[in-house]
């Protein structure tokens, strides 16, 4: 079992919930991202998602779109994100997950990417636009390299498909909380609890909910039935609005601390 699965199983055994913050790597630059990752790990993140910026992020709302643009403008590339992970890994035991898009993630080739990710200490990868049917070589290469390919499920996903996704995913199943793109929302979907229950009926894979979860209250509500929660845009927004790099690190750590407190 990899670091990510082990962490999530451990939390579940102790009756605790997983807090998984998302930041876009390289926003505003990779040095600041490095400091933010260390600070939010310290503030209580159970795993951290690093967004790999792509020029055409189809599933992102405006907040992460703009973060991706800033990251690309600061010279961020997949190779540099992998270098960031290799710098972080000796100082950090927190599982790290890359989240990005197929054209970017596959630019090194399936095996090349899987081996590079494994060697620097990436624990899982989420490819937003790569359903399992389209990337058998990619999923096989990741598993062989002992990196978890994490799959998404959506409110529109059929029951049969949900069973397939729950079976094929590794680490956890990323349940998209709404039919829509990433971004902060006023409220959490009413049907979410039923969707989580539907997965529970067919699988004991840990379920983490993301897309649209933006406040400590929402995070607490979601984790009343899910195993964990991913918070992205609301954190990215705090980093973007901070007047300086130091303020961004502080704001990120403070917000993750508030989320952590709400999950206890």
């Amino acid at each position, binding site marked *: 079992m990899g670091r990510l699965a082990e962490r999530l199983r451990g939390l579940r055994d102790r009756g605790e919930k997983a807090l998984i913050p998302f930041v876009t790597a390289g926003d505003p630059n990779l040095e600041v991202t490095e400091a933010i990752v260390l600070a939010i790990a310290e503030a209580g993140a159970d795993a951290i998602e690093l967004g790999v910026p792509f020029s055409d992020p189809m599933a992102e*709302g405006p907040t992460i779109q703009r973060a991706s643009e800033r990251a690309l403008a600061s010279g961020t590339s997949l190779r540099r994100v992998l270098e960031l992970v290799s710098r972080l890994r000796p100082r950090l035991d927190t599982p790290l997950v890359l989240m990005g898009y197929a054209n970017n993630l596959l630019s090194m080739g399936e095996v090349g990417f899987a081996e590079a990710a494994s060697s620097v200490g990436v624990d899982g990868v989420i490819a937003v*636009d790569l359903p399992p049917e389209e990337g058998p070589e990619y999923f096989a290469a990741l598993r062989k390299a002992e990196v978890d390919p994490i799959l998404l499920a*959506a409110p529109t996903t059929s029951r049969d*498909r949900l069973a397939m996704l729950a079976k094929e995913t590794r680490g956890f199943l990323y349940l998209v909380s709404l039919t829509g793109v990433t971004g902060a929302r006023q409220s959490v979907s009413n049907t979410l609890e039923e969707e989580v229950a539907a997965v529970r009926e067919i699988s004991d894979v840990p379920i983490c909910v993301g897309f649209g979860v933006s406040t400590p209250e929402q995070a607490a509500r979601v984790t009343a039935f899910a195993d964990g929660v991913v918070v992205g845009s609301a954190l990215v927004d705090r980093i973007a609005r901070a007047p300086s790099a130091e303020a961004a690190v502080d704001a990120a750590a403070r917000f993750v601390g508030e989320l952590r407190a709400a999950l206890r």
Partner: protein
Amino acid sequence: MSTPKREIAGAAPKGMHSEADARGRFGEYGGRYVPETLIAALDELAEAYPRITGQADYQRELEDLLTTYAGRPTPLTLARRMSDDLGGARIYLKREDLAHTGAHKVNNVLGQCLLARYMGKPRVIAETGAGQHGVATATAAALLGQECVVYMGAEDVERQALNVFRMELLGAEVRPVESGTRTLKDATNEAMRDWVTNVRDTYYCIGSVMGPHPYPTIVRDFQRVIGIEAREQILQAEGRLPDLLVACVGGGSNAIGLFHPFVEDDGVGMVGVEAAGEGLDSGRHGAALCAGSPGVLHGMRSLLLSDDDGQIFPAHSISAGLDYPGAGPEHAFLRDAGRASYEAVTDDEALDAFVYLSRMEGIIPALETAHAIAHVRKIAPQLGTQALVLLNLSGRGDKDAPQAKDLLAARAERT
């Protein structure tokens, strides 16, 4: 007049075949590279499309719209002066410029918007570059009483104010897209985001033979009417099939519409003409089939313009309709299979051809179409006088007149 789905009578499938497999792939290209939310919608579409378009009611209604509304069949015109001037092949023009809204786009939007109605989706969305597909979708939506939202890059909104007005006049809402390069590819991303969000009641009417399966097949099938008609017409005019088909390629819908009914005719050559922009070496072009590499964008695996890191390059062309960093997966397949070849012509050559056809035949072509004309000008003199070339005159150039006026004035100043 044939419906788009009908097969060509008497065509023996002895040569190659070009259809997506069960996974929506043309060889290594195509597929469904989309966020999980859209999988159910694509499944629904893949189920509904053959079922609905196979119904007699649907076929009758579409055929009626194509005939009595869009003005089909469009004529095939022998370009006498152009043929004489170039001193080689006899050149025929398939006159999609005479279809309603002035381009081939209407064939596709009528098919898809009618499909949306049969599927019970009251809201239609579309992406547009210069505004041609947006205008066409707004037209079909007005005709069929559908709500219509068109996404358009903010830069294109500024450059194409007249088309924005047309769409609004037709009752559509135009939403400017401020992200990325503020052009067609970003408008496509935003349309995908809308669809992800409103997938239950919304039909996404894609404008070219691109995007996730089954769109490349759907759009191709609706555009096949071009090639089916042209085939009958040239047989009637000349008693034989043409030697060469030529069409411009952005996403590639007018080209595939002309090519596909001839794919199995071994003797018929096919050339798709892309935008070389300022030159293929300049890095400022839209020639994904000539100079791109395999990758994933907008739900499909195809040939794309992207860098070593997998970031998409902004495309460039004088013609907004060719200003796209990819091309449809079936074109990538036909290229690899050697069944069609792809060439590129520069902005300057296209502008020359825009003027040339206007003076030679009294037809002002779209700047997109001018790329195909520019290529024919190059190759026709090398072909024998017995050769037959069929060029898809995909759209008329009224929309480009203001831009062409400025470009020609700027050129006159330089010389």
